């Protein structure tokens, strides 16, 4: 197919006679390029409209940015533990970390079971569709609303925070895990099915070992999110922890030195979590 065309004129002699009037097109419009353009243009138009109609309550921008710089200066360059002191803040930080860990464990355990039931390659379609729809609804409700809803239903406190955070955690991990399960090579499952293994035997002998790396990876991503959410819930739902301290110092006592101190503490924790996540991923990918 190639060799018999060897006599045609080539690079050095481009054939200019070829329909000289008509411009040569470089590409044709496909659905994909059309969609990319449509999405990009709509997003830009919406953004333009939003920014030009943004309600700024007549705040003088120059002054506000100057004030912001002053706040940043107090926070990041002159942090101190303020009226609460290091130990109180550390204890509060510990509470938030524990909230993050507990809700991740709950999310991982329940999430795995739901994921197994919801995965298309393991169970029948009805169960899967039902669980997926339920989880989509749970995920659609912001974590903070879950926490607020539970704090009136069971009373303000850690129980409300844990339950509220767990709902989102379970729903998120169910989706993540079941996507990992659905990527498993069907041959692995079939190999055990033909030996007559029971359902949960297949799950723990074939599914579980195969997806451990992505399981661990997703769980730690969720731990980072849960810690961030624990901080948020502490602030907005009064559920305690470092988030509550943050809310009080930045919204009530306006001690931005302490706010900076708290922010640094939170950043240290997130960096440690990120570090562990990266190391674990390397460990499992290395195997």
């Amino acid at each position, binding site marked *: 197919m190639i060799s018999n065309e060897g006599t045609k004129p080539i690079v050095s002699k481009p054939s200019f006679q070829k329909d000289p009037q008509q411009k040569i097109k470089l590409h044709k419009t496909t659905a*994909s390029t059309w969609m*990319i353009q449509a999405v990009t243009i709509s997003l830009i138009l919406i*953004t333009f409209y939003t*920014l030009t109609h943004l*309600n700024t309550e007549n705040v003088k921008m120059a002054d506000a940015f100057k004030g912001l710089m002053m706040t940043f200066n107090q926070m990041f360059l002159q942090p101190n533990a303020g009226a609460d002191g290091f130990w109180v803040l550390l204890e509060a930080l510990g509470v938030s970390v524990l909230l993050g860990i507990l809700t991740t464990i709950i999310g991982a355990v329940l999430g795995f079971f739901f994921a197994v039931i919801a995965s298309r390659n393991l169970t029948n379609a009805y169960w899967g569709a039902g669980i997926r729809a339920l989880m989509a609804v749970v995920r659609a409700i912001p974590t903070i609303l879950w926490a607020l809803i539970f704090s009136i239903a*069971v009373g303000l406190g850690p129980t409300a925070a844990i339950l509220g955070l767990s709902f989102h955690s379970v729903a998120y991990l169910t989706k993540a895990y079941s996507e990992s399960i659905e990527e498993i090579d069907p041959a692995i499952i079939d190999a055990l099915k033909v030996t007559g293994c029971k359902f949960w035997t297949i799950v723990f002998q074939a599914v579980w070992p195969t997806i451990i790396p992505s399981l661990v990876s997703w769980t730690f991503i969720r731990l980072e999110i849960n810690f961030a959410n624990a901080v948020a819930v502490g602030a907005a739902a009064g559920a305690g922890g470092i988030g509550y301290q943050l809310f009080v110092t930045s919204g009530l006592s306006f001690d931005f030195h302490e706010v900076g101190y708290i922010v640094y503490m939170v950043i240290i924790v997130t960096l440690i979590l990120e570090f562990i996540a990266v190391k674990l991923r390397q460990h499992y990918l290395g195997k």
Partner: protein
Amino acid sequence: MKQPKVTAASYLGKKRLVQSGVLALIAGIYAIGCYILQFDTIQGTLSIPKAFAWLAINFMPTQSSMSYLPQIMEKLFDTVLMSIASVVVAAVIAIFFAILGSKVTGINKFMQVLVRGIASFFRNIPLVAWAMILLFSFKQSNFTGFLALLLMTIGFLIRAFMEIIEDEAGEAMMALKATGASYFQVIFQAVIPQIIPSLISWILYMIENNVRDATLVGILTGTGIGFIFDIYYKSFRFDAAGMTVLSIIVVVIGLETLSNQIRKVIL
């Protein structure tokens, strides 16, 4: 093979030991955590059905809650617009930094480290802190909410875009470099066309995410859908609060479905 062979039995035994150890550790952490936080798992679990029963009675929107709908819809619409604007502006800034900082397109080692540092810093400052600091300077306005979401999103998108560039654009980039193309030609002819679908996919994901996060920001800064939920909630108008939650569910799932359809076409 100099090492003694590991027998199958001892290997399985060791593996089981490690797995049991990890499980015991996790269970231990859980137990200690429950003790310190005074969380009773059984009581907590039992309270869920009760909570839902309570919700079903109190949060269920009634005929009269329909009158709140126009107000809710207006705020929700504002919130969606604000999320989109914050993500689009963040994306423009983030792609610029991601190109400067990624391992394949980065100018030099110093910039790579600097950009990674900036991204990590912006991403890891709690959203609560951003919202409260900005509230202090910019007062209770949509602009405050917009800025809080923007700063947070920039951190996330820089990291995501850098990973996309490193995963998807390296090979095509090298080929164009080898033809003698200049830096900007390589960026616009190889990198951008190659990564655009993944970029848009991330942008859509962040928009969904920011609609949810905007609720939190709204509660703290008194803007958008979060503000209106907070008002209903604190004034015990639970049916209206329920109506708000329902509207959020519909909008978020709607956005998710739309995003998935768009992704299917462009990928």
